[in-house]
């Protein structure tokens, strides 16, 4: 574990270059260029608005602005989660030439995939901020929670990407499983709705470690309240455990990568 992190720090320039490569290749030779980074979150946010509107009319309430801004705040990180995991799962098989021919710390592949998706999130965040300003959401001291929430969310995403990338190196259909998982995960995660909607069953939904983090982001930016501390602690603990487990497993399998890919 320590050795893995020391090796990554020693090769941080490589991590930077691989991330840069992934971003550069994604936007090179595409007509819309950087607009792609906005498009995905915009589509997800629009879908969220529609769902939100439907929920509101079903319960006979008017849609209020805080609901829409809440959806926007949660949808952008969700778009990051999906693209980072898709990209991360394939990161090792698509770099098979490097895996089999040149030695480098292989953790760099899933991490670079996650970081390049993070770049898209940063661009999307500009759009979301713009929207929040227009919606007159306002600022509060609760925003200080945001770095912790986003940080834990990124680490959680990276841990899953590490896990899936190694698994799909050995078993190619892991890729399809991840696709199915990501397609339906949005129903088990409070992105378009709030966990409170479920009443007594809400804790069940929050067991998904992604949920408290997304709920927390909406709470601190839109509703200006503290996130639920116990649930946040639970998410952070789950993230930590997952991170350690994924790195340990990755390192254990790493010697077999070149001959098994």
């Amino acid at each position: 574990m320590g050795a893995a992190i020391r090796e990554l720090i020693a090769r941080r320039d490589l991590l930077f270059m691989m991330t840069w490569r992934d971003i550069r290749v994604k936007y090179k030779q595409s007509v819309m260029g950087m607009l792609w980074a906005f498009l995905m979150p915009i589509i997800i946010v629009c879908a969220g608005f529609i769902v939100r509107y439907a929920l509101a009319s079903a319960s006979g309430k008017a849609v209020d602005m805080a609901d829409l801004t809440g959806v926007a705040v949660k949808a952008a990180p969700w778009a990051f989660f999906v693209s980072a995991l898709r990209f991360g799962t394939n990161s090792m098989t698509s770099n098979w030439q490097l895996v089999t021919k040149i030695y480098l710390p292989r953790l760099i592949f899933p991490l670079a995939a996650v970081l390049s998706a993070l770049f898209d999130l940063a661009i999307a965040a500009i759009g979301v901020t713009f929207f929040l300003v227009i919606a007159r959401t306002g600022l509060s001291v609760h925003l200080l929670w945001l770095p912790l929430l986003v940080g834990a969310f990124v680490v959680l995403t990276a841990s899953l990407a590490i896990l899936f990338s190694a698994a799909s190196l050995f078993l190619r259909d892991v890729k399809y499983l991840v696709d199915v998982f990501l397609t339906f995960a949005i129903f088990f995660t409070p992105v378009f709705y709030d966990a409170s909607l479920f009443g007594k069953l809400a804790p069940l939904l929050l067991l998904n470690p992604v949920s408290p983090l997304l709920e927390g982001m909406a709470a601190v930016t839109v509703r200006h309240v503290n996130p639920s501390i116990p649930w946040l602690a639970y998410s952070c603990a789950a993230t930590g455990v997952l991170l350690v487990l994924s790195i340990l497993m990755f390192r254990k399998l790493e010697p077999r990568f070149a001959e098994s890919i």
Partner: protein
Amino acid sequence: MMNHPVGSELALDVQGVYKKFRRGELYTSLRDLVPALAGRVLRKGGGDDWDQRDFWALQDVSFSVQRGEAFAIVGGNGAGKSTLLKLLTGIMRQERGSIRVSGRVSALIEVSAGFHQDLTGRENVYLNGAILGLTREEVRRRFDSIVAFSGLEEFIDTPVKRYSSGMFARLGFSVAAHVDPDVLLVDEVLSVGDYLFQRRCVERMNEVIASGATVIFVSHNLRAVANLCRRSMLLERGRVQMVGPTDEVIRTYLQRGQQARTLDADHGVAITEVFTHDAQGQKRVEFESDAKLRITVRASARTRHEDMSLVIQIVDEHQYPIFDTCTQRLGAGAFTLDAGDEFECTFELDVVLAEGTFHVNAYLHRYLTERAYDNWLSAATFFVTGAHEVRGAVTLHPRLTGFHVTTAVAGAAPADAPHGEQRNQPSLDRT
């Protein structure tokens, strides 16, 4: 010959290394794996068939290399050379044994593997530099030198997908050649690019060796091995056969190649043995230029063959024919082999060859029907040393019989001043 300073450190220490591979396909999807696992559980102990599919690519490999030494690994296809290099770089890990390397390892293997087709040459230099272990700052400092070495200044901002394969490989080699490692692993890269680029590569290798780096060199190019490395290891089917001075290792390697064949059921007649030796009958693979070389060829027949003659051909290391002759042209006449007959003939040749590696091809031929009954390409290989004053395949024994410099007299054009000519002809004839 190998006088390492006492107490000099080891750059590389390999002890008792084993590496196992599995033949056939692995289960690469859950769809295949789940039924297979279920089947194994049901059969109980069905794991045995797995072990039979294992084969050892390396067995009990041990050697060590001093810091600053150039060391070669010689061996035929499938000897385990590339596997060994993959273990040294850390791409794979051995089943047993230990490998200790001191300092930064870099490999001139697959030097273009890190290139991305959509990026330009410039972007790929930075990317590949990082992959090979340089920081961005280090690449920036070496950038001009890398590009100059590759000779691709004009195309450096073109995406590499528009490069020819030669340009691609040259750029890859240029980046890799600027890494300044403590231990450099080289695998067959000296065959990249045209003649001029190859020469630049050899010069660069010599610079790296001179700068005190340790170089591990894997090649089929025996001449390059002999020039660059004093000590070598012979690897055969995953086992170390010999570690020692390069010329002895190469001699052993070539002699092992000159082993007899057996007559199989598919052939009515076959050449069974071809070897090179000197006039005393002593088997040799290394000859001085201008020495006498003898080639003995043995054949045996299972069925009757008439009007045969035996052809030998000598080709250079690129398989370019230099010379051929046959028993018939040398006056022996066509011969007939009856079932069970053994045949042997010996040719004596003057080695008017220049330095290099040469192969002997042998054919059993019937001129009447223009048909070859058996051929054996590269049946034997030999080396020629000496004749340092010439290059090429043969030596035509050059001597300098005239040599003078005409000095121009100041103030007068040379054409108008025949008196200014100064004869300068030392006796340069060589004996």
